[in-house]
């Protein structure tokens, strides 16, 4: 469903992604690991269409379509979702109002009926329950004054409501205590299905014991230097990233 070929991207005049190749099929979970600054968030933002990030070479197709040609809102509407590593606080914008607008925009694009206030409330209540979230969140401004963990949970909650085809989770595990981590992982696992895929960016094996990946990639200096199955994550946990410094097949 997602094919990334030779993707190069730059931001603020610096080349960050230097040739990423990646192929994700429906139903799969891919983990992306790698040291700080290796370009994991950059990859996530490029996939989501952040305007600051410039793609200088390569291509990305999503369900056969040129993803890079779409603006960020179109990507969201066709089913790409990114859970932010650092979700933005938006004072004055009510969480429920924002999410209802987003959901109905997305539904409209997908040819589904828009939800009215009651239907929306029923849906979000159910999703909040799954994620063990207090309903009071709905009436607060988006992310404002949320703790780190609450922000991450809110991202997963939005994902659960918007039901994307491809979810890119950027370090959703950081800032979560073990209980919250389990709740979030359960939320993700509940959404795993044959017509959905996940790209899970993380530093820690910990998350991957709950969300078991099909493939693990290691990103270093803007390239994928190693791919393997879930045992690669365990190996990284043991040895760190140092042993990967000289990647195989480096030109």
């Amino acid at each position, binding site marked *: 469903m997602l094919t990334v070929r030779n993707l190069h991207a730059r931001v603020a005049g610096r080349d960050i992604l230097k040739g990423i190749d990646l192929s994700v099929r429906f139903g799969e979970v891919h983990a992306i690991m790698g040291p700080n600054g290796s370009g994991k968030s950059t990859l996530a933002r490029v996939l*989501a*269409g*952040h*305007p600051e990030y410039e793609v200088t070479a390569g291509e990305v197709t999503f369900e056969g379509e040129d993803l890079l040609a779409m*603006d*960020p*809102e179109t*990507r*969201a*509407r066709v089913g790409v*979702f*990114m859970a*932010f590593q650092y*979700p*933005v606080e*938006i*004072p*004055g*914008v009510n969480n429920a109002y*924002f*999410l209802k*607008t*987003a*959901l109905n*925009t*997305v539904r409209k*694009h997908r040819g589904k009926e828009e939800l009215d206030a009651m239907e929306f409330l029923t849906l979000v209540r159910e999703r909040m329950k799954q994620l063990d979230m207090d309903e009071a969140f709905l009436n607060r*401004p*988006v992310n404002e004054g949320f703790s780190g963990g609450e922000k991450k949970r809110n991202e997963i909650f*939005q994902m659960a409501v*918007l039901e994307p085809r491809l979810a890119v989770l950027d370090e959703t595990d950081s800032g979560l205590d073990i209980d919250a981590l389990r709740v979030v992982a359960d939320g993700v696992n509940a959404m795993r299905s044959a017509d959905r895929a996940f790209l899970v960016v993380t530093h820690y094996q910990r998350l991957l014991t709950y969300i078991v990946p099909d493939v693990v990639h290691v990103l270093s200096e803007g390239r994928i230097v190693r791919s393997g199955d879930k045992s690669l994550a365990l190996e990284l946990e043991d040895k760190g990233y140092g042993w990967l410094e000289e990647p195989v097949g480096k030109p």
Partner: protein
Amino acid sequence: MMLDQYATEYAAARARRPSDEPAALARTRDEALDRFMALGFPTTRDEEWRFTSVAPIADQAFALAAPDTDARHAGILPFRFGDAFSAELVFVNGQYAPALSTVPALPAGAQVGSLAAYIAGHASGVEGHLAQVASFDRRAFVALNTALFADGAYIQIPAHAVLDKPIHVAFISTGAANGRPAMSHPRVLVVLGDNSQASIVETYAGQAGTRYFTNVVTEAVLGSHAVLDHYRLQHESRGAYHVGAMCVNAGRSANCASHSISLGGALVRNDVLAVLAGEGVECTLNGLYLADGRRFVDNHTTIDHAMPHCGSREIYKGILADRARGVFNGKIIVRPDAQKTDAKQTNRALLLSEDAQVNSKPELEIFANDVKCTHGAAVGQLDEDAVFYLRSRGLGLTEARHMLIHAFLGDVLHRMPLVPIRHGVEAVLERQLAQALAAAA
């Protein structure tokens, strides 16, 4: 030399004045004209006008418009409120248009209607209060208005009376007079008796694309425990010059709210002056302005805490797009007697383009020691990360920016208790923002 034309216009207006205008008012008008001629138009050397050049007004020959009460002019108004309001007084080029107005039954003793008619009828409230609150000694535009006003609204609510529906006072400008750009000097006088209550909406609108000059003065006198909720909705033509003063004198334990919403005009200056003249007054100043293109909007406010235990809450928020410029100056005076004053001022501006600009300045003059006085000012752009966040959830670019702008204006809008006004303002804002955002895209 351009001032001479005002002397000429004044002489002509004086000759046309009804013979029953009281001699005291005639004297005041003569004094006001003299004062205006002596002061001249303010220049940027005047501290109060440092950032605002009124040369475009001073350099033009405006003419007083003849009465023209063609019913079609009512179409210029952005909104009429119908049943949601009690009286609706409509003025065209500063002259009362009875055919366009409705004045239903009001509480016994209330007087609502054309100021000129009440002047002619020697209404005691007019004689007691007109030109008492808005001093023209150091204000050229107030002097000019006092000399030249033809008509306006008089609203007098007797003690203990409560208006259950708001009053709408609408001033329409058609643009030209005798082949010259027209000027009008509307005057509004509001007298609220003790324990009375009223909501008043002033609307200013003009024929789209025309250039004219509106110079309004509103005076409001609040008795003790009186409650005034006042809105001024400035929706002039984008080519118009609008100078407005809103002067309030609030008595003991009165509650006074002024909402100044400034959306139109090429060059706009709004002055709000509130004198808290009794103990325990609560005063709210609420301001919202939007300018795009090369338009210029200046808001000057003064809250004069003259007595103890008064509270004031002021929030002004502005949005400037393209090459628009804004000025905000918020003065808070706390006189030596005004112990236990609690004053809070916030002013924020959102710049939607790199070429937009705002000059803003709080001015605190505090002469009492046991007071709480805070102010905060901020100028910024839309948070691009927030825009991206919203887009990444499916909202379009324009929709995302709209949502953030609404969030920015949220507290000001929510402080307007009159729902039809709030909705009306939101609708007009929506249209204007769409224009400004399209121009910015």
